[in-house]
């Protein structure tokens, strides 16, 4: 196994502290690593994604930039092609539209179009997720959008441990990596996190390999496949279901590109029942992809399949409507029960 087994540690970090620890380590090791984005230096990142980095590394390596995503994300592509290792932050993933051309026509395609003669070793970090009533332009996850377009590796941590290991890997990777962190998991004061993302985190650097889904809870009756915030909602549902004797396995995909279908298929082989949970839109997304892979490879094993995702509506502002469309633990619980009817 490529992953270095962590030592038993007592120290717990929030997900944002764990991310920043990995970034700081890589910046100390390699002068070519730098971070740029809006409000990342003096503010420390709106979601604490760069808290304290400017104090250690200064403005040259932690760069605040004007509000100009096309320019600075494209500049990250250019710097990466020149051999540096930029990390560029898109404050909210919803803002991707402002600069998508630089992301999907350059960052993601230049390696291919150059016949492999050019590499783009950059990380695009971005905040995702709703659950705080900020409406349709600030609440999307868009996992499927980035995973759908070829050429980008796509990372979605759900715990501090994974966040650190995946970040080390992302910065060291010679390909462009989109690192999507859920605001509700970061451990920021004004947006309380659920129990779960704050985990023990070793001091030393370690990597979590891309394409290695993690079984966050073992179970024999139903396989729940999910990612990001919904790992914690699925675990909550699993605890409730356990009281009724339903033993749920919860698989955290951790990366969408590459996708670890093997772990999913193995689990389906044991349980025969699949529930896929996603905070992204239902159509043409993660749920469809996982179910399709399962159908292709393990059709005979599948006794029941359920999808739990945001119905195909933009995220509404008012609380009753946002609660309606973003799946919660009860929605997951109900879907699991339906697979057993």
């Amino acid at each position, binding site marked *: 196994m490529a992953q270095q087994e962590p030592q038993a540690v007592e120290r717990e970090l929030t997900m944002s502290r764990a991310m920043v620890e990995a970034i700081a380590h890589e910046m100390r090791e390699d002068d070519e690593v730098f971070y740029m984005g*809006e*409000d990342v*230096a*003096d*503010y420390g990142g*709106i979601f604490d994604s760069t808290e304290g980095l400017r104090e250690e590394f200064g403005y040259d390596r932690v760069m*605040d930039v*004007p*509000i*100009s995503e*096309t*320019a600075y994300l494209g500049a990250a592509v250019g710097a990466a092609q020149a051999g540096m290792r930029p990390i560029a932050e898109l404050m909210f993933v*919803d*803002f991707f*539209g*402002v600069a998508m051309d630089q992301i999907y026509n350059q960052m993601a395609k230049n390696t291919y179009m150059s016949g492999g003669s050019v590499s783009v070793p950059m990380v695009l970090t971005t905040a995702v997720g709703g*659950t*705080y*009533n*900020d*409406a*349709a*332009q*600030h609440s999307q996850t868009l996992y499927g959008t980035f995973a759908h377009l070829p050429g980008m590796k796509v990372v979605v941590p759900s715990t501090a441990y994974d966040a650190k290991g995946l970040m080390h890997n992302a910065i060291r990777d010679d390909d462009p990596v989109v690192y999507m962190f859920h605001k509700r998991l970061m451990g920021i*004061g*004004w*947006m*309380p996190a659920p129990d779960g993302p704050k985990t023990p985190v070793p001091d030393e650097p370690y990597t979590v390999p891309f394409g290695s889904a993690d079984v966050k809870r073992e179970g024999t009756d139903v396989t729940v496949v999910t990612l990001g915030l919904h790992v914690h909602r699925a675990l909550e549902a699993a605890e409730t279901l356990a009281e009724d004797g339903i033993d749920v396995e919860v698989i955290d995909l951790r990366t969408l590109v590459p996708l670890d279908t093997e772990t999913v298929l193995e689990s389906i082989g044991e349980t025969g029942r699949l529930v896929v949970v996603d905070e992204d839109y239902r159509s043409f997304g993660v749920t469809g992809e996982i179910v399709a892979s399962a159908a292709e490879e393990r059709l005979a094993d599948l006794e029941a399949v359920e999808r739990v995702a945001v*119905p*195909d*509506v*933009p995220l*509404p*502002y*008012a*609380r*009753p*409507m*946002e*609660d*309606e*469309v973003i799946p919660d633990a009860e929605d997951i619980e109900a879907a699991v029960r339906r697979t057993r009817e």
Partner: protein
Amino acid sequence: MFEDMVTARYYEERLQEEYLEGKQPAFDISAGPIPGELHLAAGHEAAAAGVCRHLRDDDTVTAPHRPHHVAIAKGVDLKRMTAEIFGRQTGLSGGKGGHMHLFDPDVNFACSGIIAEGCPPAVGAGLAAKKRNEDSVAVAVLGEGAISQGAFLESLNLAAVQELPVVFVIEDNDWAISMPKDRITDVEDGSRRADGFGMPGVRVDYDDATAVYDAAKDAIGRARADNGPTLMEVQVHRRMGHFMGDPQSYRPDADTEAAQERDSIERLADDLRAAGVSDDDIEAIRERAHDRVDEAIEWAKDQPEPEPADAHEDVFVNPPSGVTTDEPNHELAESEGDD
């Protein structure tokens, strides 16, 4: 103008009170009667009031994520706007949009939470007016942080080459969240960007509503007379953080204090007095504005929340059959709301 400014300031003071309810002692952004982010415009009132005074209902305004003062000056329905901010069913957008996404087609007002993204639709409104030989104009309001965005620069160019009736109004409050203006541009006078596009540029150095009014009169008059676009920059001041809950640790205290000492509303009140308006008349305007705001907030808080199933409506005006899986009964929802 004075009434618009007083209304906007008091409106935001009241919103701030309501917003903080339930979010204390520990600030939790998703708690309390007003959810989500809230960006207040205290210190920006003069720009909106001075410009919108020249506008009619059929003129279009696109505002940024800090929209309330512009909406009030443009004549957006205050009660329904407030209900929207409280996330209520009778809000302008039925609770779907919230404070950054207010739409009032009756007065052609819209805003967006994406920086500079109101500029292209304003160009489009100007284009429509020109194609139809109408004399309506469009105004795009944006912050000085938005002037680095492609959407803004591309819009200036398109409006210029097509000679469209559009006025771009930059509200320069010196801060783009944590970034002071001198770190986002080497051109101190933002109106000079007009030079690069062959259109007139004008800057109002201090947030003096009368000076804004005069400058806007020229710009909007030019647009209405089919003489093309203008870029205006108005120096305003930011009395608070970027959003409610912003600790502003990046900002020197002296800067915040200086902003709070400047007050375009008191300045205009002094001007009014100097022009012979009595203190009683000024006080009467304030009282009228406060009453209107209090009434709107009370009304909004009384409004029903949306039904959860309302979330599935409005994705399309003309929904393809089979698209909505959970068809809400809107009549039922409304009648319940009236109870």
